[in-house]
């Protein structure tokens, strides 16, 4: 997959992903401040626009960096800052290559999760986006051929979302609900799941990279 192909795949995915904005906003309202829907819509639009303005010769890493920058500034927020950092970390995996190599998806996902873990001082079990990201990354890493990956990753992410719903939020706004956060579904983890699902729906599974 070239940089141009990656950019197109991302744009197709984001077009579907923004349909989940309301759901994510509502979940964030129950556990936080309700702005995740806005972050996702404005961020996706900004990233898509940035990709449209990018040179066709851009490398996959440059494509990812453009998304990171656009997402960070569109509606700066926890999610925007964490995702931007995660994409930055992921882009390092891609190096200067003009193609995404098969099997890089898992490494990318892991680097992204680790970046968030570090910046957010958070782990799996804190009931954040990481409760979906780490299991998904592991699933992607488990089978390097990219095809099985995405479905398995979606399953793993979904399981993570469900599992973490029963936990108490330990990071971010949701943590202020203390024990009242138990039973509410994490918006960030759900966003990650919806992103993966959008990718699958928008692009043939084989294209995951």
């Amino acid at each position, binding site marked *: 997959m070239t940089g141009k192909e990656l950019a197109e795949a991302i744009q197709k995915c984001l077009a579907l992903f923004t349909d989940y904005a309301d759901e994510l906003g509502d979940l964030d309202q129950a556990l936080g401040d*309700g702005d995740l829907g*806005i*972050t996702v819509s404005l961020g996706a639009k900004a990233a898509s626009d940035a990709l449209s303005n990018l040179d066709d010769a851009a490398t996959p890493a440059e494509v990812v960096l453009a998304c990171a920058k656009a997402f960070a500034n569109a509606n700066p927020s926890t999610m*925007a800052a964490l995702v931007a950092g995660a994409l930055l970390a992921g882009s390092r995996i891609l190096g200067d290559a003009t193609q995404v190599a098969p099997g890089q998806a898992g490494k990318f996902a892991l680097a992204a999760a680790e970046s968030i873990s570090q910046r957010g001082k958070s782990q799996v079990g804190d009931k954040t986006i990481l409760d979906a990201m780490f299991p998904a990354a592991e699933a992607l890493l488990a089978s390097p051929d990219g095809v099985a990956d995405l479905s398995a990753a979606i399953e793993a992410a979904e399981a993570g979302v469900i599992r973490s719903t029963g936990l108490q939020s330990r990071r971010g*706004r949701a943590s202020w609900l203390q024990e009242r956060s138990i039973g509410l579904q994490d918006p960030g983890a759900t966003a990650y799941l919806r992103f993966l699902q959008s990718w699958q729906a928008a692009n043939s599974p084989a294209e995951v990279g």
Partner: protein
Amino acid sequence: MKKIINEPLRFVDEFLEGILLAHPDLVKTPGDDPRILVRADAPVAGKVGIVTGGGSGHLPLFKGYVGKGLCDGVAIGNVFSSPSSAQVFEATKAVDGGAGVLYLYGNYGGDVFNFDLSVDLAELEGIPTRTVLGCDDVASQPKERAADRRGVAGIIFAFKAAGAAAERGDSLDEVAAVAQDIVENTATMGVGLTPTILPTTGKPSFELAEREMEIGIGIHGEPGIHRGELETADEIADHLLAPLMADLSLVAGDRVAVLVNGLGATPLEELYVLYRRVHQTLTAAGIEVAKNYVGEYATSLEMAGASISLLKLNDSRLELLNAAARSPFFIEA
């Protein structure tokens, strides 16, 4: 949604343009982004700069505390959303008078991540920074995790004191220490009666029934700790005040500053009804109210409700509160 606005996505830039048109003698924008605002005379050579920021929708917070004896600069984001690190950094450069810059803002993840990125950018340019987080909302975490609490109206005590310390020539470490001292002695608790409607989504930030109130609510509508039947003003004051007094371990003979803050739609009259009870209760407990603020100091657009903040005082804290200050929204003469 009944708002006096134009295009919702232009809301923030438009009210900021209004502020710049109204107060060119007090504030200016260093470049052409109205979301970055600094005092008209910034940078003040040799003085520690103070930069704050956070989401829009809280006027007079944050824009209103930029001025002499207060903060030097501010970067704000969309309604209830963080400014970007680039904006924070631009404010930092514009207020740097060579003595370093204090970042003083509320403890929210989005803000923390973006200000922290700007810390790195400032370091690269050789501007030393310190960070102090407002974390006064006792409803958000128990005392043991006080540093993880969210920051609400009580941060204005820190703006005022740190601003006065910077103005009198304290060093960066000293100004940061003043801010930290104030933050550690400030406690706030709020009550919400009606929600805010976000201009971009048109949705209420939370929902309450006709006769319901929520104690401990956050200024972005973050859920509180008790939802129940609307109580009388005196009962609400008691509900909010007791945890604050406990949190600050107040005893007879102590002195405090009191802030009764309106969240947006609550009439000033009601704030004074609350103040009356707070003053009476504290006085009866032998605690002196040496300074008070009643009005809208940190709002949540058109949310109905109020918060009460206490700052435990000593002579040096009180002196800093009483020092002269001036912004378009805050004057201590």
